[in-house]
């Protein structure tokens, strides 16, 4: 049984189709990537899993159990935690307050939150010295690290990360990707959404390629790296990539 099973989900924004009939599954401890151009529906899939958008049809199961219909905060207590695109850190709050909010579902115990914060900061030593800074003052790379650290505070069973490389220079991207590799190695399952296909295929074990709201290709990352269609669309030819968008 897979940890996370997404079965034939469709999402509409009004009359406009966001995604249709998407299925994939994620094994415990695995990193999978959802790839595709801007507007392919990758973020919509994460939003559906987080409960930000409603399913028109289909179902999502976590650990074999169907997710209860409901608002996003319930999904977080189930262990489905998302790092949204664009980071969405709380800029006017301090780094430490951001982390504390990440541990919000452990609302009953301040001690549990502090212990978790120590564990999380071990993975993010750079944030340690900046705990009392306003999060809005951090650099882009630090903000992305904070967004991931904040999500880790909730002890996710599945960590969903939406476009972590967006707007970062290559050096910072490496740092963020190393972090994600560490997180996966420590046993957290990761669902990664990326436009940067080459980068994502290096990290993930499997990937699904989305185009106009449906899955058009899927398989082992190693195989997809060599797949001509992926290469044509994303890794090499600029004209083809434009056509896919």
């Amino acid at each position, binding site marked *: 049984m897979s940890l996370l099973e997404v079965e034939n989900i469709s999402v509409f924004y009004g009359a406009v189709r966001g995604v249709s009939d998407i299925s994939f599954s994620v094994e415990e401890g695995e990193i999978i990537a959802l790839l595709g151009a801007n507007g392919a529906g990758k973020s919509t899939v994460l939003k559906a899993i*987080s409960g*930000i958008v409603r399913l028109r049809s289909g179902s999502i199961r976590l650990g074999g159990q169907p997710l209860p219909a409901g*608002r*996003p*905060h319930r999904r*977080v*207590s189930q262990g489905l*935690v*998302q790092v*949204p695109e664009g980071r*969405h*850190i*709380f*800029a*006017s*709050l301090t780094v430490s*307050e951001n982390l*504390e*909010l*990440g541990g*919000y*579902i452990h*609302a009953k115990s*301040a001690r549990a939150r502090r212990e978790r914060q120590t564990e999380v900061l071990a993975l993010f030593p750079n944030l340690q010295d900046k705990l009392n800074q306003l999060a*809005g003052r951090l650099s882009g790379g630090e903000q992305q690290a904070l967004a991931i650290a*904040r*999500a880790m505070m*909730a002890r996710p069973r599945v960590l969903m990360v939406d476009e972590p490389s967006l707007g970062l220079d290559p050096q910072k991207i490496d740092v963020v990707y190393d972090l994600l590799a560490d997180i996966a190695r420590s046993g957290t399952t990761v669902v990664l959404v990326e436009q940067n296909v080459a980068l994502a295929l290096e990290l993930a074990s499997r990937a699904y390629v989305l185009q106009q709201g449906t899955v058009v290709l899927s398989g082992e990352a190693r195989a997809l790296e060599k797949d001509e269609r992926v290469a044509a669309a994303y890794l090499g030819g600029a004209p083809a990539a434009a056509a896919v968008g």
Partner: protein
Amino acid sequence: MQLLVGEIENGIFLGAFFVLIALGYSMVYGILRLINFAHGDFYMMAAYVSFAIFGAVGISHLHSKWPVVLVVGLITMIATGALAVLAERLIYRPMRRAALLSLMIAALGLSQVLENGVLNIPAWGSQYRTYPVTSSAAGTSILGTQFTYAQIAMVIISGLLAVGVYYLVGRTLIGKAMRAVAEDRVAASLMGVNVDLVISLVFFVGGALAGAAAVMDSLYYGQINYLMGFTVGLQAFTAAVLGGIGNIAGAVVGGLLLGIVESIGTGIFGAEWSVVVAFGVLVVMLWVRPNGLLGERVARRM
């Protein structure tokens, strides 16, 4: 000089009420970007709720009865908080995706519903009603100006409530959740924050503070009227804008400052000019410094 000190002291007393009401305005604005024009009418409703409870209990002298007054005050705070929560649940929440202007118009509508609702209750009606309990006239002189003990207690209670709100929003986890929701509702929900519950709580706190202000105000002035929330509401709104709306410290600074300006203004021009002074401040403020005195930190909205 002595006169000025007296005006400032009186201004602080007046401002203490503005602070309590402005906090509710400011917190709701911070979290929903809504200027809740019905907020002053929550205050008015609180006066009538406590009027009814006092009527039912049947006491008339505050001294020696203060524990009863305290209990009635607390019940009124809870009732007014509940009224604010109900208003959010029934009116503002279904409109959350609507344009802010629609929400503001709905708030004006609610204000009219509450005012005319009270007007049409025979026992309340359009006349000024004498509040069943009035605070005692015993007092003392502070820096040469006479104040009643009740006034001093009211300023202290307002101060404690304001400090309580400051602590709630600044230090507690639920307060941090309020600030998170104010800044980015979706991101807060992705942290596991129940956004609806947090918004309800903000309305509750705002309503409860208006309730406390209404009971104290009525105890002191001894009269209530169905339109009493209108002017006070706008004055408190002015105070919130003056300090920087959406900002807790701003509501406190703005409330006290408006109280003092109004007190000095009426000292110079006469009491009939008090409202003119208040709204003069609003107009000037919107003109020279629309973000309010603490406006640089407008990002730190709550």
